[in-house]
């Protein structure tokens, strides 16, 4: 049972996987409910694809168990699991036309011919390629091939569908279109979708929950809004959405106020989130920063504009703050008065309830 009371569809228990001495996955514990859309998000080499392949059955984990609908399938080979995978490359069988490709799993199960015809037509209609049965695979575009690959796995009515970066080989425009398709198909089919990607925008747009992977561990798994607004670790903060993750020192001053040392600057405020004293990370989203002209009694901290880029919707600035090693990123909507010039002194302020403090270990 998951937290929301759904039946458990996929359970990962204490899964560790090693390649030689290196651990690709360390002690992963995960429960995914029936019908959920969960994304494994992370950079290359973080273990997300390894976990997916373990769930699919192409890898045996060094330690731990995999359960599907409550049954232990750790030792079960891929073709016997009620799971199907959509890969990065569609890999449509070149000697079969579209219809036969989609019908592949049904023919293996010796489904009667009329039912095959019906289900293939339904699957192709579901991915919006009706009537494509007799087309040859090499006549299709990249997006169409991937849709046929999707129909090919959906026709088997799996309860769990694994998707391994299925859109990364497609052009951006097709990719956005396919994302909508995937969300729609997920709603219509009701299966559990496990999606792997390194594209955090995609993860936020598609998922019920996002699991952020780093070096073989899950750093956070939560709804997209919470992962974005309340990242649990500096890594998640940096990886999901662009963030400034600034090393600061927190000291309690008197009267409920807290003093934050940022580089060589200091600010003194009553922070509603009452950060713990000591070393911390200050997480600031670039769009939360407010820039104004430097002035003696400006509310924020002083900085100098080092670079900016025009983004259509606004400007992306890089601001240097005294004593800070990295420059801060700020995103500001375009205004008539035009951008701040390079080298201009500015004042950096932000809504203090919109920032986040995370514990930092020294060293």
């Amino acid at each position, binding site marked *: 049972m998951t937290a929301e009371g759904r039946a458990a569809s996929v359970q990962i228990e204490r899964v560790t996987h090693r390649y030689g001495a290196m651990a690709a996955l360390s002690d992963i514990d995960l429960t995914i409910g029936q019908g959920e859309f969960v994304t494994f998000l992370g950079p290359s080499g973080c273990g997300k694809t390894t976990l997916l392949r373990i769930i699919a059955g192409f890898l045996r984990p060094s330690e731990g168990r995999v359960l599907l609908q409550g049954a232990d399938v750790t030792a079960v080979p891929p073709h016997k699991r009620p799971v199907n995978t959509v890969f990065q490359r569609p890999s449509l069988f070149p*000697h079969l036309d579209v219809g036969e490709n989609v019908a592949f799993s049904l023919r293996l199960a010796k489904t009667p011919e009329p039912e095959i015809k019906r289900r293939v037509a339904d699957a192709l209609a579901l991915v919006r390629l009706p009537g494509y049965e007799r087309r040859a695979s090499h006549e299709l575009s990249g997006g169409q091939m991937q849709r046929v690959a999707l129909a*090919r*796995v959906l026709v088997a009515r799996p309860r769990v569908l694994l998707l391994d970066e299925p859109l990364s080989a497609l052009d951006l425009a097709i990719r956005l279109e396919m994302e909508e398709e995937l969300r729609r198909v997920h709603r219509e089919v009701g299966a559990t979708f496990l999606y792997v990607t390194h594209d955090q925008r995609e993860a936020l747009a598609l998922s019920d929950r996002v699991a952020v992977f780093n070096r073989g561990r899950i750093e956070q798994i939560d709804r997209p809004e919470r992962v974005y607004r309340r990242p649990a670790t500096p890594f998640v903060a940096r990886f999901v959405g662009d963030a400034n993750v600034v090393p600061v020192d927190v000291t309690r001053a008197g009267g409920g106020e807290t003093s934050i040392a940022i580089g060589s600057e200091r600010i003194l405020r009553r922070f509603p989130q009452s950060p713990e004293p000591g070393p911390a990370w200050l997480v600031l989203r670039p769009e939360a920063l407010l820039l104004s002209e430097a002035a003696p009694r400006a509310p924020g901290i002083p900085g100098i504009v080092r670079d900016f880029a025009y983004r259509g919707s606004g400007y992306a600035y890089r601001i240097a703050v005294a004593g800070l090693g990295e420059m801060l990123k700020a995103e500001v909507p375009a205004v008539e008065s035009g951008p701040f010039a390079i080298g201009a002194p500015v004042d950096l302020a932000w809504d203090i309830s919109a920032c986040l403090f995370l514990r930092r270990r020294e060293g």
Partner: protein
Amino acid sequence: MTPGTSRRRDPVLLSFPAAMGFLLLLAVPLAVFLAYSFMTAGLFTVSPPFTFDAYARALGYGLNGILALNSIVIGLLAAAATVVLALPVAYWLRYCAGRWQMPCLFIITGSMFASYLVRIYAWRTILGTRGVFNQGLEALGVIDEPVGFLLYNRFSVTLALVHIFLPYVVLVLFAGFRPLAPAFLESAQDLGANAWQRWRRVILPVMAAPAATSFLFVFILSAADYVTPQLIGGTSGQMLGVQVQANFKAVGDWPQGAAISILMLLAFVACYGVTLLGLRLRRLDRIRWVN
């Protein structure tokens, strides 16, 4: 073509010297050979008038029919055994070999160039009554006396032919496996196919064309062989090629030798045509790969 370059003469001209040579040494001789099959036979010579006699003799001579049948049987057996053996080897080389791929390829292609005659000689020594095989069986206590049925029959001829053609077929099938990326096999397994089903529904259809053409290649070259049967065929392992060779070198009936050869050639072309047609009908003759 980059603007500014002028190709004054098409490069195909460079191939003309070789083409001349080939017309003279291949096309013309084959034409003459065809003509000979219609000539009247003398002793080691031919003369006009043109006649169908040679074909009548070729088709009428009972021994020719028996030898033809033998050639077909041995050819089919050799081709089948070679392809059936070569498929798993090519599969292993493609998907499982890892760092052993290069060394194994070297061994296999290297053995391809061990002389034809040397191979036949090798099998003659091994399969003989005093050969390694018999000695091994005696040493293991399986038999008391050497067995004679290993040599000078269809079995030894087929075995030697498989030994000769196996490396070539492995290479052709290995090349055929190349575009079949592991992703396709994984997709098939993901969709529920076990190992046998993956072979039947994905690997074999894709490999049908290279497998069929190599089968044909081995069949044709085996059925037309005259050296192997002469050296290790005994009585039951004789083949039509020997008869042709005998007609030319011993008997002196060149038109009949030519007639038999032309008939064999026609049969081979027919086999080739039928196979291509079969592949085309199942749309397996040319696989278009996109991924």
